[in-house]
């Protein structure tokens, strides 16, 4: 079975030939090249990094995540922190008041003169180089996370209580931009779109705020993506999401990717009849700090908890740290090849 069929089968809650594996390890790819994290701002390095991740680990799904923040926000003319060997971040908000939201536009991802277009060129280049062997996923973005970059995280969180109508307006505007980036990414060869919302978890906002500010927008983004092209979509929210798994499934995505704070067995029991489950090898304790034996144990635990009957993709619970040992990464692929073939052994054997 080729990667595309395997992945599509899992996303539609079916049982493929074996459990697919997904890697979110773009920055780790820079390390595989012996480069610094900041070098990834250079498109050629970025392409090589993503290719290196595929060539070394042969995941069924590979993703450059958000790309890098310089590409996302470099057109806005705001101060950014761009360390030589660390992640980019936004230093000052782009939208400082309600008027800014109306007057200061977001860049068009399709305009070749925009820095944002670098992300699209990366996807095009990777699809051309390795797209027939693996499924390319791209993050369509998020409701509150990206909004936090544009107005400040504390500001948007306080706004949910203090000025909900402005919060709605900003979240919707960012969602429209997210859809444009997702559509351009699909046209560039992306075959799976992930909606990622790091600020919408149960450690950050209440279920009530999640229902009010995130769910309708995520639903709309998912519908728009599907209307553009009928490809699989997933939703990843960091942190403890046990109290909102049902709502995550309500957004209409094909799969839910969960952090290692939530048991895969619980997720499968709760919403496994509506969505496929993606997760959740611990990216810090297991992948970054553990041994290959720990990775094998944790991956087998994931397969045992959520693999039965299909509808499951093995993945890290969140983005992989750049300095993760390559032998740990290799072990995820090795484990699905050894223990992930359907029909799976009984849970006791796993």
């Amino acid at each position, binding site marked *: 079975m080729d990667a595309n069929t395997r992945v599509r089968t899992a996303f539609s809650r079916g049982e493929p030939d074996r459990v697919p594996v997904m890697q979110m390890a773009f920055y780790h790819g820079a390390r595989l090249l012996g480069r610094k994290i900041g070098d990834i701002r250079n498109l050629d390095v970025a392409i090589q990094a993503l290719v290196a991740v595929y060539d070394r680990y042969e995941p069924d799904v590979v993703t450059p995540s958000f790309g890098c923040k310089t590409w996302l926000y470099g057109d806005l003319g705001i101060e950014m922190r761009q360390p030589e060997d660390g992640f980019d971040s936004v*230093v000052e908000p782009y939208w400082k008041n309600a008027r800014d939201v109306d007057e200061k536009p977001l860049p068009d991802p399709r305009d070749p003169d925009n820095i944002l277009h670098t992300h699209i060129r990366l996807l095009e280049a990777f699809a051309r180089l390795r797209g027939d062997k693996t499924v390319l996923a791209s993050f369509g973005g998020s409701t509150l996370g990206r909004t936090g970059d544009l107005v400040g995280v504390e500001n948007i*969180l306080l706004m949910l209580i203090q000025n909900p109508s402005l919060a709605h307006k900003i979240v919707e505007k960012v969602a429209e931009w997210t859809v444009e980036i997702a559509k351009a990414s699909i046209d560039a060869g992306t075959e799976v779109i992930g909606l990622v919302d790091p600020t919408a978890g149960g450690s950050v906002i209440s279920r009530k705020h999640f229902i009010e500010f995130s769910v309708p927008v995520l639903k709309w983004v998912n519908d728009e993506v599907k209307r553009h092209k009928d490809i699989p979509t997933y939703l990843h929210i960091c942190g403890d999401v046990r109290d909102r798994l049902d709502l995550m499934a309500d957004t209409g995505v094909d799969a839910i990717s969960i952090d290692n704070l939530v048991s895969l067995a619980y997720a499968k029991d709760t919403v496994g009849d509506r969505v496929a489950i993606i997760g959740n090898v611990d990216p810090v304790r297991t992948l970054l700090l553990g041994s290959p034996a720990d990775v094998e144990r944790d991956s087998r635990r994931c397969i045992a908890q959520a693999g039965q009957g299909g509808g499951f993709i093995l993945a890290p619970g969140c983005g992989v740290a750049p300095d993760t040992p390559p032998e740990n990464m290799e072990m995820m692929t090795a484990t699905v090849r050894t223990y992930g073939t359907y029909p799976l052994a009984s849970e006791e054997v796993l």
Partner: protein
Amino acid sequence: MDSNDILRRIQEAVVQGNSEEARNLAHEVIRCGMSVSEAIERGFSGGIQVVGDKYESKEYFVPEVLLSAMALKAGIEILKPHLLAGDEVEKGRVTICTIQGDIHDMGKNLVALMLEANGYDVNDLGRDVPIDRIIEEAKRHRSDVIAVSALMTTSMANMGKLIQSLEADGSRQDFKVAVGGAPLSQSYCERIGADIYAEDAAGAVNSIARALGA
């Protein structure tokens, strides 16, 4: 309004995140000559403890906590200059920052504010602070604790470097080192040789108090 009434209303203002009311009540404390340290400790600090409990029990989330923190800050800013010398029983001295390589400071800001409300002398260095500067500032401030946070796994590694630098400098024994942030854990704290770990802001205040034998 007697002083117990005022203390109760201060707590309520903090719990409800009502900055205006917190400011009014702080002025009221000064006007009627109440003990400023009592207003901070039993009123404002008491209120933020309730907020911490509500966060723990998932009644409150980060937006609600941020709103309460603003009310706390608003009141304390007014009261602080009125603290009498010797009025304040200082619980300890803490130098705090987000570690080099990281600008995520929301959690750190909450911890700093809660420490201050609980009677600690807090030296907040901000975010993305180089290791050498942390050590220099902690010495100058004569801190008991160096508290550092990280949200990203890349910057988390700098916490271990901070401890190595303290050791190389011969000043490791002068400070307790507290670490926190989403990718951290008790086992990572132990692995890098830090002294204190907590999952959230309220936990940080308790753990630091325990480590200092309070």
